C-alpha cells in the first residue's frame, strides 16, 4: 500500500524560479520569501518520498488553447522542462513513474474522473517552480520521480472547487490501493490571491488568503463549497487556481499536522503562500 506522507501547497509564480535561477534569493525584495521557505525545505529534505505528484496548470507552454483538458495525468518516463520563450530553466528534466501513473489513471477513470492521459508533456514553471520551492539545489536530478496532474484553471468553466476536492479524495484512495509499499508527496500549486489583467490588476486579498490558509488545514469542505464567481471575487481572476490546493488536500487524511506555513506579498503581482502538512498519523504518547 502506498502512503501519502506529506502535502505541500505552494505558489508557482515564475519570478520565484527566476529569482533562484539568477541567484537573487538574498536580494532585499526576495529574502523574506525565501527565508519563509527555509523551515519547510529543511523538513522536506528529511522526508524524501519515493514519488511525488504535482498538481499544477500550464501557462501557454506545454499545451495551447486548441484543446483544454479539465484534468490531465502524465504517464511518461520523462517530462522535458519547457522553453517558455527565452531558454529553459536550468533545472533537471523530470523523471516520471509510468507504472504508478497507470495505476492512478485506472483507479481514477474507474471512479468516474474523465482524465486526459498525457504520454508527452513539456512542463513549465507551474510545475518546476514548486519543485524548486521544495528542492532549491536539485543537482542532476529531482529528489524522486514526479507525476504531473494538470488542471484547467485558465479557461472558464474551470472544474468546480467541489470537483477538485472530490478528485483529491479519489486520488488518495487510488494511492492507498497501489500494491507497492511506497511513500508519496503531493504538491498543490498556484495562488494565492492575484489578478493580472483588467482595471483590478494587482488585487491582493490578505484576509481571504489567511482564511484559505487556515481552512485548507482545518475545514477544506468549506472551501470546496465556493463557487467560481466567489473565488474570482475573493482571490482575483487568477487566484482561482487555488482550487488546485484542494486536490492535494483531498488526497490527505482528514486530520493533518501543519509543519510550517508562510505568506508573502508581492511575488511579482501575486501573493505567495506556502503550507506544509504532515499526513502521518500522530504518534500515540
Amino acid at each position, binding site marked *: 500500500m502506498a502512503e501519502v506522507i506529506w502535502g505541500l501547497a505552494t505558489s508557482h509564480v515564475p519570478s520565484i524560479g527566476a529569482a533562484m535561477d539568477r541567484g537573487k534569493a538574498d536580494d532585499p525584495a526576495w529574502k523574506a520569501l525565501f527565508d519563509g521557505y527555509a523551515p519547510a525545505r529543511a523538513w522536506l529534505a528529511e522526508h524524501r518520498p519515493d514519488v511525488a505528484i504535482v498538481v499544477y496548470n500550464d*501557462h*501557454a*507552454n506545454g499545451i*495551447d*488553447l486548441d484543446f*483544454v483538458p479539465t484534468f490531465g495525468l502524465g504517464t511518461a518516463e520523462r517530462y522535458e522542462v519547457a*522553453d*517558455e*520563450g*527565452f531558454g529553459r530553466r536550468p533545472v533537471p528534466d523530470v523523471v516520471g513513474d509510468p507504472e504508478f501513473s497507470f495505476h492512478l489513471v485506472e483507479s481514477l477513470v474507474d471512479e468516474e474522473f474523465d482524465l486526459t492521459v498525457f504520454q508527452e508533456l513539456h512542463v513549465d514553471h507551474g510545475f518546476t517552480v514548486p519543485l524548486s520551492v521544495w528542492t532549491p539545489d536539485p543537482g542532476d536530478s529531482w529528489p524522486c520521480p514526479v507525476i504531473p496532474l494538470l488542471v484547467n484553471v*485558465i*479557461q*472558464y*468553466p474551470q472544474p468546480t472547487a467541489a470537483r477538485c476536492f472530490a478528485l483529491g479524495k479519489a486520488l488518495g484512495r487510488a494511492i492507498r490501493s497501489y500494491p507497492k509499499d511506497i511513500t508519496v508527496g503531493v504538491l498543490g500549486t498556484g495562488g494565492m*490571491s492575484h*489578478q*493580472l*489583467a*483588467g*482595471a*483590478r*490588476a*494587482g*488585487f*491582493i*486579498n*490578505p484576509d481571504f488568503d489567511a482564511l484559505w490558509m487556515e481552512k485548507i488545514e482545518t475545514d477544506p469542505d468549506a472551501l470546496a463549497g465556493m463557487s467560481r*464567481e466567489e473565488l*474570482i*471575487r475573493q482571490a*482575483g*481572476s*487568477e487566484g482561482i487556481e487555488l482550487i488546485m490546493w484542494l486536490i492535494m488536500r483531498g488526497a490527505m487524511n482528514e486530520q493533518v499536522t501543519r509543519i510550517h506555513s508562510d505568506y508573502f*506579498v*508581492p511575488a*511579482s*503581482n501575486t*501573493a505567495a503562500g506556502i503550507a506544509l502538512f504532515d499526513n502521518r498519523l500522530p504518534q500515540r504518547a
Partner: protein
Amino acid sequence: MSSETPPSRFDLPGTPVFDGQTSRRGLRMNKLFMSLRTAQNRERFLADEAAYCQEFGLTPEQQQAVLDRDWQAMIDLGGSIFYVYKLAMMDGRSMQYLGGVFTGMGEDEFLAAMRAGGRRDG
C-alpha cells in the same frame, strides 16, 4: 483607442473572465503569441509584424492592437493574459508594466502599490 470592453460574465468590475467565448474570439491571436516562444518566430514577427498577423488570421482590430501594443485591446479582443504576456516579454516588458497599463497607474506607481501589499477592492 481600443474597442469596447465586452461585458464580463460576472458582476465583477475590472475583472476579465477568460471564458470559452473569449477564448474563441482570441484563438488566432493567442496562437500568434504562443508562437513567439521561439527565436526564429520572434525574428519573423519583428521583420514584418502586419504580415505575421495576417498569416495567423488575426482580425483587423486584433492586428491593430498588436501593432499598437494596445494591451487592453488585446485582452478585450480575446487575449489570454498568459498568452499576451509572451509578446510583452519579447518587448522586454514585465507583468508590472502590464499592471501599470491595465490600471492606468503606470508601472512605477503600480510597482509601489504591489510593494505596499497590493491593491484592494473598493
